[in-house]
């Protein structure tokens, strides 16, 4: 276990550094965008006078490094600050949306990860057969459709035509769990179709990759059945690449679902972030970007830890 602790500590330190740089880049990037919060907020109805008043009020007249330092100081004290656009506490603004984002990602993961593994394992078992090719074509097609398009098709069938699910997933903070899951099912299915192919292909490929290993031959020479060979002998050794891809997709489920949020009117973090970028609301963008970056870093770390835990060579050194 000692090396896991060491790895976590190392990764945490590196992660913090990455977070810091990400926040710098985001701050500089958003600031470099033409226009500022005041212009975006007032849109077509802006005048020079009102813009100036606005800038003064929210402190946009200060230089970027100064504003960044203020923000960083707040963060270190655990204070995300307030949204420049509507003066709300960012922690409050983000809180429920973050929960929603994680809920949707979790739901999608619960459906897609076991599905992808099962499909991948079956494809490895019956490789080059009709089933294998069929799954391959279906999943490849599903990833080549843009997300919003998959969403529209699912809505057409499951919501408009058959009326099984609502087409809106406007969950709120007080929505009970069962209803929340029911309402979020369509977006979760959409995301499943988007991510399942990648994970399934990797599962299949990593298993097949190992089938030439001497220990797999050994297992069949011990008279083990095909399915036992795949499940007990190949799969445990294929975890590392599979976990990596799963984690990458989980990160995507959390970070990259803006489009699905928009189509299903799901109040997640992605939309908040895009909105805030458009409005140049730097503190909110910063907060969202930091959360996303942290998610990515933590998930990556999890992948590394999992590949250690699933690999006896690394878990039990000589």
């Amino acid at each position, binding site marked *: 276990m000692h090396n896991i602790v060491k790895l976590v500590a190392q990764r945490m330190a590196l992660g913090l550094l990455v977070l810091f740089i990400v926040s710098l880049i985001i701050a500089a990037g958003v600031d470099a*965008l*033409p*226009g*500022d919060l*005041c*212009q*975006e*907020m*007032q*849109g*077509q*109805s*802006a*005048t*020079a*006078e*009102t*813009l100036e*008043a*606005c800038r*003064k*009020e929210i402190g946009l007249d200060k230089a970027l490094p100064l504003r960044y330092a203020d923000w960083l100081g707040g963060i270190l004290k655990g204070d995300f600050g307030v*949204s420049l*656009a*509507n*003066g*709300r506490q960012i922690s409050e*603004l983000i809180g429920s949306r973050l929960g929603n984002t994680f809920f949707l990602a979790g739901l999608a993961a619960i459906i897609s990860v076991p599905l992808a593994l099962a499909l991948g394992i079956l494809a490895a078992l019956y490789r080059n057969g009709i089933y294998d090719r069929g799954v391959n074509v279906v999943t490849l097609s599903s990833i080549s459709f843009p997300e*919003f398009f998959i969403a*529209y098709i699912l*809505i057409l069938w499951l*919501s*408009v035509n058959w*009326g099984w699910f*609502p*087409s*809106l997933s*406007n969950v*709120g903070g007080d929505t009970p769990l069962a209803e929340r899951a029911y309402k979020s099912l369509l977006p979760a299915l959409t995301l499943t179709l988007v991510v399942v192919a990648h994970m399934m292909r990797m599962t299949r490929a990593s298993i097949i990759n190992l089938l030439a290993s001497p220990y797999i031959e050994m297992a069949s020479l011990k008279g083990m059945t095909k399915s036992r060979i795949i499940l007990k002998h190949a799969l445990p050794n294929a975890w590392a690449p599979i976990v990596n891809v799963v984690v990458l997709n989980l990160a995507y489920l959390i970070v990259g679902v803006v489009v699905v949020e*928009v*189509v*299903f*009117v799901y*109040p997640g973090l992605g*939309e*908040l972030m895009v*909105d*805030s*970028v*458009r*409005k140049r*609301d730097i503190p*909110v963008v910063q907060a969202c970007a930091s959360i996303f970056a942290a998610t990515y870093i933590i998930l990556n770390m999890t992948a590394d830890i999992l590949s250690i835990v699933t690999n006896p060579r690394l878990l039990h050194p000589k």
Partner: protein
Amino acid sequence: MSEIDRLKKQLASGKITRREFVSRMAAMGAAVAAPGAMFSAPAMAQPKKGGHFKVGVGAGSTTDSLDPSTFLDSYMQTVGNAVYSYLAVVDYDGNAVGDLAESIEPSPDAKMWTCKLRSGVEFHNGKSVTPEDVIASYRYHMSEESQSAAKSLLKAVTDIKADGNAVTFVLSEGNADFPYIMTDYHLGIMPSKDGAVEDPTSGIGSGGYMVENFDPGVKTLLKRNPNWYDENTAHFDSIESLAIKDVAARTNALTTGEIYAMDRCDLKTVHLLKRNKNITVHQSTGTQHYSMPMHTTTGPFDDNNVRMALKYGIDREAIVKTILRGYGQVGNDHPIGPSQKFYNADLPQRAYDPDKSKYYLKQAGLDSLKVDLSAADAAFAGAVDTAVLFKEHAAKSGIEVNVIREPDDGYWSNVWLKKPFCMCYWGGRPTADWMFTIAYAANADWNDAYWKHDRFNELLVAARAELDEDKRRTMYYEMQEIVSNEGGTIVPMYASYVSATSDWVGTPEKLAANWDWDGNRAFVRWWMA
């Protein structure tokens, strides 16, 4: 039929209540200068009380706030109209009539406007609405540090005085249309304390609905204000307004019954939506127009011949048919809509004419012309396609329009007013004066063509203070002609507001045209069927 007769008739037939009759008659007094051209008000079925109204609005943002000075799009405009009351509102005939003000009286030179407040009106927190609240609410927009879009509207206001139950606005110059300013959606009345608005973001107003829950960019829950003074409006028990920016999501939610009304129908598919028997598609053409401003200060647009060449180079009919799918009318290169009071119907409609276009090009001393046109769908849905069509049309007269797709993000700050030729839209303003003043008057903040015309500017000031209807009409007619023939803006079309409701909800037969959502007032005007 005179307006008064009509009102009497309506009262008799039960279409309006006595109270409404009184309030409208009162407003009539204010509108002495109101136009003679009247349209008949839409027939109304008898509204029912109660019900939970769910709507999907194709706007809204996570950065929204309940502060009226920040209202930007129809999402907060509709919420604002439900939550706040205004001194005046625009009725179905396009007149500004008193709402919170029982009467609105001008001085003869139209420099002083006195509003008598309705008595016994309370804010949602129980506080009575006083003239001090009105003054504080208006001053909130006028203050030095105000960021309100209404600030420029109130530039001419030099003083606001309270006098018993009345409020008097003192203007630096005469403005016959001042009651229309009072209808601006920013100018909701908020409770004040010590002469200042207590908390502009609190969402406490005196309108027909109270804010129960406000989640910016997601949804707003409203419930009926039990102390609402008008029996004929605010019929729903509660309202749930969802921000649904994706048009397909809105349409799906409407067809599956998850919402009862939506705005901004997808014009590409609205003919398919109409097939649904449970859904009614509404269309109202008012002041909303799409425009293409050219910077008249930079070449080649500084030459009116070039501008005319471009104006003749666009096939308006085709664009209305293709982009608006017929939901709109062709424009005549000025911003006054056909439904508006001083619309100059005598001005010949400009048509697509490549030969004339070539002629003007020659007048400008050019054989061919190449211009960059900046476009993004942020300007309006279909702006990019419009630009592409224009490119095809203009090619016939030897003009090469190079369409540059700009990012949606930051369009209004980076492209509009900055790029010499771009796509733009105007929600329109209820009066000709208002529209011309903000976007065509020399040095106006939003004069997006940087256009300056002496005669036009003279007329604008003169017409504003003129209370004589016929004289005003003559002046506005001439101004439209000037803008159309010499202005820096192509106005190819007037776009209808196209919305849809399901059978669950009752609406007037014809919706107001000044804004989307029945003039932003659907929440207070509609009912459950």
